[in-house]
């Protein structure tokens, strides 16, 4: 390759994509250099030759239809803050209702019975007790299980010693 100053710009020059300064530089150089003038001229001829054999294709009409069918058009749809807040409120509501149902299911009968028979002050006291009841029951269950385990362990160690 000749002319190190211009060789990196030959094809850009032919495609008219040089900056104003580069263009000025190239044109000045081409006036003085016959070799580069010939190269540029040949690049132009090659461009014309290959342009004449360029395929002229119209895309099939179904490309757009197929692409639009294949993509998920809602992919970039984002939820706004309000809808996110509403969803959180809804979830919280469901959780509270579910908790209420659970507590009632555990102790429904005593609560209904008490409500029918005692005063409001008494009701508050009873509700407090009712809420505490599952925890008391749980405590009792745990101590029974621990007792059973102790019995099992002592039986096991007796067997082993024999």
């Amino acid at each position, binding site marked *: 390759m000749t002319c190190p100053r211009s060789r990196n710009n030959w*094809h*850009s020059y032919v495609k008219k994509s040089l900056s104003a300064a580069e263009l000025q530089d190239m044109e000045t150089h081409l006036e003085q250099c016959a070799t580069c003038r010939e190269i540029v001229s040949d690049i132009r001829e090659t461009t014309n030759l290959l342009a004449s054999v360029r395929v002229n294709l119209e*895309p099939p009409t179904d490309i*757009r239809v197929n692409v639009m069918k294949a*993509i998920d058009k809602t992919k970039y749809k984002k939820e706004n803050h309000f809808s996110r807040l509403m969803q959180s409120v809804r979830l919280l509501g469901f959780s509270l209702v579910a908790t209420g149902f659970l507590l009632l299911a555990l102790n429904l009968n005593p609560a209904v019975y008490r409500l029918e028979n005692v005063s409001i002050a008494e009701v508050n006291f009873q509700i407090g007790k009712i809420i505490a009841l599952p925890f008391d029951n749980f405590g009792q269950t745990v101590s029974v299980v621990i007792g059973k385990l102790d019995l099992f362990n002592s039986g096991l160690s007796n067997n082993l010693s024999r």
Partner: protein
Amino acid sequence: MQDEELIQSILQGYGEEYAVIVERYQTQLYRTAYYYTQNVEDARDLTQEIFIKAYNNLEKFKHGSAFSTWLYRLAVNHCIDWKRKKKPDYEESISLDKLANKQAGPEELLLHQEMASEIHKLVRSLPERYRTIFILYYFEGLNPQQIAEILSISKRTVETRLYRGRKIMKNKIPMKLSGGVFNDLPSKSE
């Protein structure tokens, strides 16, 4: 609407706007795909795959560069991958209705068709590093700077490869076809 505005709109949830992008670029992408596949069926499939891939990766598009450059990069890489993985089942010969430049007489038409087929075959036979640059420069009409951005290489490398690519072509192309176009280049034996 400009490309960047359309992309912004799509990323805000208006996916149906993508149809405008497909309409705008399908001809160029289809033609580029055809240069790799050499048959219309595969070119169509490849074009569709490129558009779907582009849509699914739209968030990765950096607004600093032109969308067309980003799309071309994706297309060229996809075509190169396709070419590596699959040998085409068959290659269509270049028919006259696919040629951009139609000559007058029947004899000239035949010669032109023969020359077109020969040149396309030569371009396809170029090593990959020259082939893509040749397609983008001579067939797609892009300038070296645009090609450099698409292929993430320097403009200087593009210029060098275009020069060397012509040199390789010169060694292969029959003189009667080129009409002496490659005469400026030193031949292999020189």
